[in-house]
């Protein structure tokens, strides 16, 4: 998974916390998560086609999924990640 954030933006901070909690509860370490701050790495966002942040890209297992926003809606996030 790749989570694109924008520094200490309130939604970015919330997205990181929400995703870490989900990973801890549902994945128990069996995952790889890369957090990319687009303020520090602007070219990554451009090359990866990211339009808005926070934005979570699930790369594997297929199907890939993109979730936009602060990941507060846990049922929707779990559904998109295939964890329900």
């Amino acid at each position, binding site marked *: 998974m790749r989570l694109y954030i*924008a*520094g200490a*933006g309130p*939604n970015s901070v919330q997205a990181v916390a929400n995703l870490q909690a989900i990973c801890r509860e549902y994945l128990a370490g069996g995952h790889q998560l890369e957090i990319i701050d687009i303020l520090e790495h602007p070219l990554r966002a451009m090359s990866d086609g990211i*339009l*808005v*942040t926070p934005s979570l890209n699930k790369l594997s297992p297929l199907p*890939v*999924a993109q979730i936009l*926003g602060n990941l507060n809606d846990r049922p929707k996030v779990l559904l998109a990640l295939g964890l329900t």
Partner: protein
Amino acid sequence: MSARVAAAAAPVHPAPARGKSAAAFQGAILRLVKGGPERRAIDAGEIDAVVDTTTGRALLLPAAQQAVLHDKAHAISLLAMASDWSWRQDEQHRFTTITGLSERSDAADLATFIGHALWDLPLENLSEADWLTHHTQRDWRVGFRALELRGSDARGQVHGISFSGEPEFDANDRFVGYYGVALDITGRMQAQAAATRLQHQALAALDAIPTQVCVLDANGTVVLANQAWRACERTSGIAAGVPEGANFLAWCDRAAGPERADGAAVAAGIRQVMAAGAGACFEHRVATADVQGPRVFSLQLTACHADGEACTVVSRTGDPPPSAPPR
């Protein structure tokens, strides 16, 4: 297959439309974000930044802008708490600005740094090798941490300053100088100097004592010995002349031949006082012979504590008074 999920909620515009600049901002957002899920997420107030895919530049939405600015102000405030003043130097390593001096009594002295490189200042404690290392760091354009310098001001008062710095580059990656922070470490340097002085005085006093004295750590290794102890030759009997760094306890344990019984007794004594703790004493008298003929000496062991570490003081005196019959 790709699924895109946008948070759906009542539209909340993160940037309240106010004036021309707000309208221009909204226009820029609309121009950049055309997709439905992104727009919905923005309207739900769940987005911090919009990326201009042609330049890679991130356009922060107002709440995120505020948070980033707050975060920056927080970092600056933490920096101010952790350091006494900050500085900046040009590409020739000359101080150009020094900030945070207003409340300092030595502000005038520090202000004289402006226009000078660090090595132009009247500093006393760095050796040629230290300066060479520092110049190499600067030549390589790498950061440096806690470079501790000592110098005297116009009134002859000694000051200690710890410098940390990072190189700075412009948008074209051209080196433009260094910036960093400084800590006033005068108090610590004075305390260190006082402690060193006291240590030298204590060692000098120990050396002035004619009795042979050494200190063992908890493993029985000689960590300190006075001049009389060091001068005593190994041939002068058990416990004589064991050098600093050697294990006195092991030396006693390994004693062979006529010294074996005395060695075992002294080793047992060391273990006994170590186990009993600070203040415990043990004395062993040994009859021996050297070039001057038969002699008797006394070995006193005293347990003590230094900086929380158990240690044993061993003192060795010559012939005991006649009232105390030798063993």
